[in-house]
């Protein structure tokens, strides 16, 4: 991987395909409509437009990274390849039974998500490995050959192999693959001991079958994309963003598509974290609010929180992913009064089509965006883009009829109510990622992006006592930007459930050394020099008998009994931080060993040329804006005209090409040298 030449980041969202290019330190942004049926077409269109606008030379592109929703969409729509499963005798239904809970307790119409592999494609083989990795029943190889014969006859393009306790001993899984291959099974094979070598058979099997089912989908898509960009003359390799916030090569993504399920959101968090870091903020909560939903996540010390229990489309996919929490509150969320006389917002959304009433595309239901308009926060004359027209009278009439009259309030008060209710549900989401995980929001900055995030962030920050809000210059394309600044990451893990006291430091070292060697080889294959290479080792520990683990970093250097004691102390400390208490006398148990191999990517300098001028010259107009029932004459600034270092005090509205920022009364704003708006929230 080379970082010379132009850098291109392409993120495909549901509505827009965003491109960010950095050429000789100059950052350019291009947005085109997404083409969901053939996403690569939107990429090509975006690249062509970028070339027209910037004169970029495709043969000069040295780095090309992509955030993809192909795997995500395939999961959400259940549109994947025919897949078979080979598993331990007696357990073919483990995948279907799952954790035996029904998804909704009180809804009789509740359904589980479709089982990834249908029952008639789940094959059992006699074998058994015990909890220490010892073979208690040898693999019945004749049975495997029999399965191979049936697989060869069946129309499957992918096979998952998931045997009990394979994280302790993968010999049976590997032997199954050998036999299948030697018996002429042509479908590609995914082993659970490769994809997720961790305890809990349902989650491991599910993750492995999803990986298998997505492989052909990902392979086809990446093949198309690679040939499209090659046709344009781009010679650099294609890099893909994973759910953990790191970049991998397209070839690795082909074998591990399940690692890309949160590709886009992860890139957004990476972008937000990067921009905040430039402003000196390392602890932050990110908030990405678009038309239908709001994604929030937390970054501590510059590292996004990574979880291994994230659900995608109701499937618990246990590979490491940036812990993004989503609520159904977006600009298009519909406000309504329910039959118990409460004002509700969402979960239904007007989406992009027909969209809010103010889009003038036939929307007839009051939405959050409409409420923002009525309160003066959005400019009806320069609304979002030139293609959209706004009819304020129509918005008012609908608000009056549907909300204000039934509530016995003014239109403005009803609109304020819509925002209050929407903010309440977003506040709940922000609490989930912070307070529920043991973090105090007062220690964090809030980075707002997406089309609607900067409209809400300053109010939410005030509610949660978050001291500072940052709105990046590229708030509308932060995911694409994130692609350009993210490191290469490979995660390695294996479960070893043992008493921590009894663990031999040598065993730890051997496993970690093996992970490091694999990581080193992988990074070297991608032409990353040793100086760019880092290894982060950690262990998941818990109190013996518990079953939720905390990940604890392992200090650098050799591992001896002193290191073990240090790690144990760190575990107690982390437990106390997260849950408020620790049991220092209780025995500690090792569950999983992890190593993250990091290839550090050189980041481009995003400092923009200083904008020179007077703040006053950036004022476009003054208009009345409502804040919690008060109407204030409010200055409206054009973002691109704000000089570097500009400082002013709210109330204010800052209008930019991609989003509008609301600054509440008495909050102060500064524009930093990267063009980021930094809002001091105050009390």
């Amino acid at each position: 991987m080379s970082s010379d030449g132009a850098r291109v980041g392409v993120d495909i969202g549901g509505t827009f395909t965003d491109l960010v290019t950095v050429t000789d330190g100059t950052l350019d942004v291009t947005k085109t409509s997404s083409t969901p049926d053939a996403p690569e077409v939107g990429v090509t269109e975006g690249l062509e437009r970028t070339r027209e606008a910037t004169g970029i030379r495709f043969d000069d592109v040295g780095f090309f990274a992509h955030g993809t929703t192909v795997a995500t969409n395939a999961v959400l729509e259940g549109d994947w390849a025919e897949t078979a499963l080979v598993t331990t005798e007696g357990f073919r239904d483990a995948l279907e039974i799952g954790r035996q809970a029904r998804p909704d307790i009180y809804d009789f119409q509740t359904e589980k998500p479709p089982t990834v592999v249908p029952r008639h494609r789940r094959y059992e083989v006699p074998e058994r490995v015990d909890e220490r990795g010892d073979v208690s029943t040898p693999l019945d190889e004749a049975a495997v050959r029999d399965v191979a014969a049936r697989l060869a006859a069946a129309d499957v393009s992918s096979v998952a192999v998931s045997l009990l306790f394979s994280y302790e001993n993968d010999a049976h899984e590997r032997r199954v693959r050998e036999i299948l291959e030697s018996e002429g099974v042509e479908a590609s094979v995914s082993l659970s001991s490769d994809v997720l070598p961790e305890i809990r058979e349902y989650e491991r099997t599910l993750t492995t079958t999803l990986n298998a089912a997505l492989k052909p989908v990902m392979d086809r898509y990446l093949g198309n994309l690679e040939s499209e960009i090659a046709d344009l003359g781009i010679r650099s390799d294609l890099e893909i963003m994973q759910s953990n916030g790191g970049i991998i090569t397209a070839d690795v993504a082909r074998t591990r598509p399940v690692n890309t399920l949160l590709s886009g959101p992860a890139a957004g968090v990476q972008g937000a974290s990067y921009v905040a870091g430039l402003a000196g903020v390392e602890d932050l909560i990110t908030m990405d609010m678009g038309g239908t939903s709001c994604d929030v996540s937390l970054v501590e010390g510059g590292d996004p929180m990574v979880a291994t229990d994230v659900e995608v489309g109701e499937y618990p996919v246990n590979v490491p992913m940036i812990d993004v929490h989503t609520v159904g509150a977006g600009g298009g969320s519909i406000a309504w009064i329910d039959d118990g006389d409460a004002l509700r917002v969402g979960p239904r959304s007007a989406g992009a089509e027909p969209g809010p009433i103010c889009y003038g595309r036939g929307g007839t239901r009051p939405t959050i965006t409409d409420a923002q308009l009525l309160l003066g926060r959005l400019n009806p004359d320069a609304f979002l883009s030139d293609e959209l027209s706004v009819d304020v009278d129509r918005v008012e009439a609908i608000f009056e009829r549907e909300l204000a009259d039934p509530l016995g309030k003014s239109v403005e008060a009803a609109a304020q109510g819509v925002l209050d209710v929407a903010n309440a549900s977003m506040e709940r989401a922000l609490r989930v990622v912070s307070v529920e995980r043991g973090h105090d929001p007062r220690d964090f900055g809030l980075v707002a992006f997406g089309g609607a995030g900067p409209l809400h962030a300053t109010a939410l920050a005030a509610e949660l006592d978050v001291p500072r809000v940052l709105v990046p210059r590229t708030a509308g394309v932060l995911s694409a930007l994130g692609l350009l600044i993210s490191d290469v990451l490979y995660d390695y893990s294996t479960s070893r459930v043992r008493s921590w006291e009894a663990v031999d430091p040598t065993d730890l070292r051997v496993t970690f050394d093996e992970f490091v060697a694999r990581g080193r080889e992988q990074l070297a294959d991608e032409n990353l020099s040793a100086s760019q290479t880092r290894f982060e080792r950690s262990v998941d520990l818990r109190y013996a008998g518990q079953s939720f683990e905390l990940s604890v970093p392992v200090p650098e250097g050799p591992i001896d009994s002193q290191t073990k004691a240090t790690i144990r102390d760190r575990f107690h400390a982390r437990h106390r931080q997260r849950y408020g208490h620790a049991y220092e006398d209780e025995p500690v148990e090792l569950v999983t060993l992890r190593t993250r191999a990091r290839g550090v990517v050189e980041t481009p300098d995003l400092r923009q040329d200083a904008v020179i001028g007077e703040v006053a010259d950036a004022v476009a107009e003054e208009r009345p804006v409502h804040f919690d029932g008060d109407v204030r004459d409010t200055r409206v600034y054009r973002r691109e005209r704000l000089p570097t270092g500009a400082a002013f005090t709210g109330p204010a509205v800052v209008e930019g090409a991609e989003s509008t920022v609301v600054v509440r009364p008495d909050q102060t704003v500064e524009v930093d040298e990267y063009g980021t708006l930094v809002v001091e929230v105050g009390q």
Partner: protein
Amino acid sequence: MSDDPVVDPVTLEVTRNAAAAVCEEMNANLIRTGYSPNIKERRDCSCALFDADAEMIAQAENMPVHLGSMPFSVRAAVDRFPRESLAPGDAILLNDPFYGGAHLPDLTLVTPVYHDGELVAFTANRAHHADVGGSHAGSVSADSTEIYQEGLRIPPVKLFEAGEPNEAVFDMILSNVRTPDERRGDLRAQEAANETGRRRFAELAERYGTAELTAALEEIKNYSERRMRSEIESLPDGEYSFADVLDDDGAGTVDLPVEVALTIDGDEIRVDFAGTADQTAGPVNAVFAVTASATYYAVRCVTDPEIPPNHGCYRPVTIDAPEGSLVNPDPPAAVVGGNLETSQRVTDVVLGAFAEVVPERVVAGSQGTMNNVTFGGRDPRSDEPYAFYETQGGGFGGRAGKDGLDGVHVHMSNTMNTPAEVLETAYPLRVARYELRADSGGAGEFRGGLGLRRDITVRDHTATFSLLADRQTHRPYGLFGGGDGESGSAVRIDPDGDAERLPQKSTHALPPGTTVSIRTPGAGGYGDPSARSTAAIERDLRAGKLSVERAREAYGDAAIDEIGEPNTDPENGGERPDE
């Protein structure tokens, strides 16, 4: 708007969100800090927020059987410790089924919340503890005839006083249970969860002020009540009844009737269990809190499940249960299975009565049991004692427009299973088989869900095994022409292959190498089997969820012949008959 709320609709929705968030934070905290797999893996626990009058405001939803019954615990705690006897930092523990509890393993902790020196709310949580003493490891005994055999009975006592643990109470409890370290860990987690809720609620009180917050809490209840009344109003007035039976009580009495008469009158519902069996010797008596909980659950499901569950929701529902009956026993009745088994039958009959009122909103008879299984003994790997308790899913009833769910927990339970890899690592047991039971779902236009089979083998030691199950003689009912689900069974398989069926409520010593095979009931079908689509029959045949023989019997030769030979063969092994 018929009513004139004092709290405006925006504040209502904002505070309701905040109250729900308090419970969710408590719940997240409890599950993460809980000690035993029971709490952490299975999530056999629940959290709720109550106002200063001990009326429920919000709950975090894990376990239906807890949520309707927890209000009785908070009420009992407050009756025993009126507000003048409470102080900040206190926490009241209880489990006595005859004093606010449900059954002994469920320990409820109630914590008063203060703001500016005034008691403003209670946080409460309930967790199922893997052992609370009594005659058998796991405290889910199948053969108790008095509550004294079922474990330690804890009336409301202060577990914490002014923030300090009451060591005497801790000692008393921990001396009476088989796995004291685990119990202490779980109790600490319960305390931490309430403390989380207390802190969060105090923040709300700070933000809104006590007076405004109190008014908002009242309005949250009124809001649910309004929505519930409007739902009931839309149901046709009349009297509806249904009867079913509990198979046996484990102490020799069989076929215990459970009967209900439902009166819908305007915007209120009266539920009367007259005609139900008298309380019985075996451990299946359901205390009133449990009966109420099962009834509320059924009402909630057939009205609008989106109505936020709280005290207001249940105001329009009146429940009469004859005193001294199976569904409202007097002490010292044995009750451990009332919460687990009889609660399911109560749900079955209330839903059965609703079938005539709202046929499209009910489901056919579901597995109707929790299939409680307890293993205990000494782990030969560590020489430490262990107790392992779990419950098994089964068939969920056929529904209007959809087949029932296969292999899930039904109605009053929704605990997660223990993964085989976790179970085998933690306990000297081996899961030999875990699968769906072919042919167990009742036929119907929409068939009943399949039961499960779970085989567990004892490794290298002799284990005590208790089973507490039902629906092994009387089958889950079908509705509107649908067939009944298959009943369950439990089989003991010795190392030499000898097999013997076990009574559904019984306790045994299992030598090393013995396997118990639990087969859980399938559910009843919904609608006439002749209306079932050929595609649905073919799908089940191909998946091996239905045998050709059974298909012919249930859906007729003509339907099966139409599908044709190649498409009726399961492509992969097919059903495995229960051996």
